[in-house]
């Protein structure tokens, strides 16, 4: 892992240039350009708001559109960074066969690219906050750490996924499906407080309730989304109890994922 950090420092310029290339390429010949980055979360926010008006989801004193938007931006970041990261090695096959540099540059670049789009979406969020007359609290300073954690969560899947995808292209095809399922198991449409209330307060699943809640929060993104909403909208510190299971999972998964990637790396050029 120390070697990984060293590589990132040594190749930071390449990382930047490749991320810049990805962004430039994606929007170069598109008329509205980088504005496409906000299209997906805004559309989903509108749809969820519409659905919410039929089914009724309790969003407390926070207006539902901004609550769901604050959930959508880390979720979409995680989803797209992971999916692109998994496909990144195969889609750069031409470079892999010709030039050497540490191969983790590719998944890292995918994540970097998505970070830029995340930044743009923060602009929209800021606009919404102004519209609803909300002020960020001092707890917003937690954001960089929360984003870093999201990046690590994304890399835990992206690294091992990218390596496997070189051998079995099934991975990159299956992953988006799995990820869109995961969205329903994450507090995107509904807030985490609802889940907590049902399971911990009302013990809705009987003696299994506490275990189920732990399982639910094993999904690192559940904790991330909740933390986003807390520090930005509620003016509260992150709920570390809800983040802990996910953090433990990532702490185990990330090193494994990295080791698998590095072990497979030498054979990418032969197989891809």
């Amino acid at each position: 892992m120390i070697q990984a950090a060293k590589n990132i420092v040594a190749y930071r310029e390449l990382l930047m240039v490749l991320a810049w290339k990805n962004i430039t390429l994606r929007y170069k010949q598109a008329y509205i350009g980088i504005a496409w980055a906000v299209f997906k979360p805004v559309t989903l926010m509108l749809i969820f708001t519409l659905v919410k008006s039929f089914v009724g989801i309790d969003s407390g004193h926070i207006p539902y559109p901004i609550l769901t938007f604050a959930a959508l931006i880390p979720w979409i970041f995680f989803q797209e960074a992971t999916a692109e990261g998994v496909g990144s090695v195969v889609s750069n096959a031409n470079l892999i066969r010709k030039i050497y540099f540490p191969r983790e540059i590719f998944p890292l670049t995918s994540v970097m690219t998505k970070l830029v789009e995340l930044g743009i979406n923060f602009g929209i969020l800021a606009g919404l906050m102004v519209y609803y007359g909300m002020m960020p609290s001092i707890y917003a300073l937690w954001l960089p750490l929360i984003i870093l954690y999201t990046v690590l969560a994304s890399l835990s899947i992206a690294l091992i996924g990218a390596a496997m995808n070189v051998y079995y292209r099934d991975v990159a095809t299956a992953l988006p499906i799995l990820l869109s399922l995961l969205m329903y198991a994450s507090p995107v449409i509904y807030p985490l407080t609802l889940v907590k209330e049902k399971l911990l307060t009302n013990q809705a699943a009987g003696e299994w309730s506490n275990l189920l809640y732990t399982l639910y929060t094993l999904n690192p993104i559940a904790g991330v989304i909740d933390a986003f909403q807390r520090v930005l909208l509620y003016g509260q510190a992150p709920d570390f109890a809800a983040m802990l299971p996910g953090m433990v999972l990532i702490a185990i998964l990330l090193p494994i994922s990295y080791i698998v990637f590095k072990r497979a790396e030498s054979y990418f050029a032969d197989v891809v």
Partner: protein
Amino acid sequence: MAIIEVNHVTKEYSLGQLQSLKHTIQRAAAKLRGQPLPERPLFKALNDVDFKVEAGEVLGIIGHNGAGKSTLLKMLAQISVPTRGNVKIHGKVAPLIEVGAGLIGDLTGRENVFLNGAILGMPKAEIKKKFDEIVAFAELEEFIDTPIKRYSSGMSVRLGFAIATSVDADILIVDEVLAVGDLAFQRKCFDRMEDLIKRQNKTVLLVSHNIRQVQRLCTRVILLDHGRINQDGAPQAVCDSFYEQSDAKINANAAHAKARTRTSGDLELMELGFLDQNGQKTDHLSFNQDCMIQFKIRVYQHLSDVTFGFGFHTTDFVYLTTHNSEEQLHINYLPLGEHDVLCKIARLALLPGIYSLRFGVTAGQAAGAIFYGENLKHFQVVGDLPVTVREGFFALDAQWLLTDGKDTYSRDIAVAGNPMS
């Protein structure tokens, strides 16, 4: 100390299709049940290759297709790892494997310089410093802000070459890149390579099918054959033996139609043979000895004003010389049937080596040849190289004099020494 060490490197590839996930799971299941697994055949792309390169050496790697050249370069560029053995490199490597890998069509020339430079490991500050030089070398000043998808293929390759050779590295790995652009640019590339090699004293590994280029640039050549080092030594010796091997391969491959002929149908070459100075049939000719070439032709149409011509060329089709019968034979009419044509050569000037032969016939007012064929017969010229000749294709009849400005003296000798006078 050696800058590159290749220690007993073997690279194996599995033959056949990459297996599906389903197949892998079935295999894993079979393994768990303890059933024997069918082994997939392995292909050795490199077989126990072992050599060292000293700093400043220019090493050429040659060999037939599939000999393992590119695989070896991949090991050296760290793109792939050996199955057995190891590669140690002490210094920064700049891989020029297929220049232009990583150029992006949608980006402008300028953007591509920065992108490709970064991919090749140049810091941004250095790219900025060298930017003008790169653009000037690629001759793309006018087009540098145009997306390179609008470039001609020559233009993008020029840009790729200019970027790749700007990388400041101790070791350059070059794979067939000198054949880029038009002739003027090829010249420029070649000069740049020579500059990198001779003046900047870089260590260079050059893989090429252009054996003449290898011979000229390299200080040492390795000949790979089926993944093994067949020869390792001085460029001249190794390249010559490569030519011989190529020739043996071509000759062995009889089904391969080696000769390229075209005919109007009026005439056909039946047979082609060599006679030595004693008039005996022979397969090879001797340097500096008289010899004869015998052409047996069959004529299917009455021909008038016939001229024969033949020429020697190298096995890679460098035309060396020709001779035609125009002044010596005045054939106004050539009847149907078989004819023997003989060409006598006095003191064959071709240096020992492998050559081939071409032959053509013109007749009447026809603009082109009614028969033309090249690569008709490969042959070897044997004999000892005279000490006056180091390399090339021909021996010259020449004399050296130390005249120190004494004009008259030199004129006397020159006349005396000229056999033609």
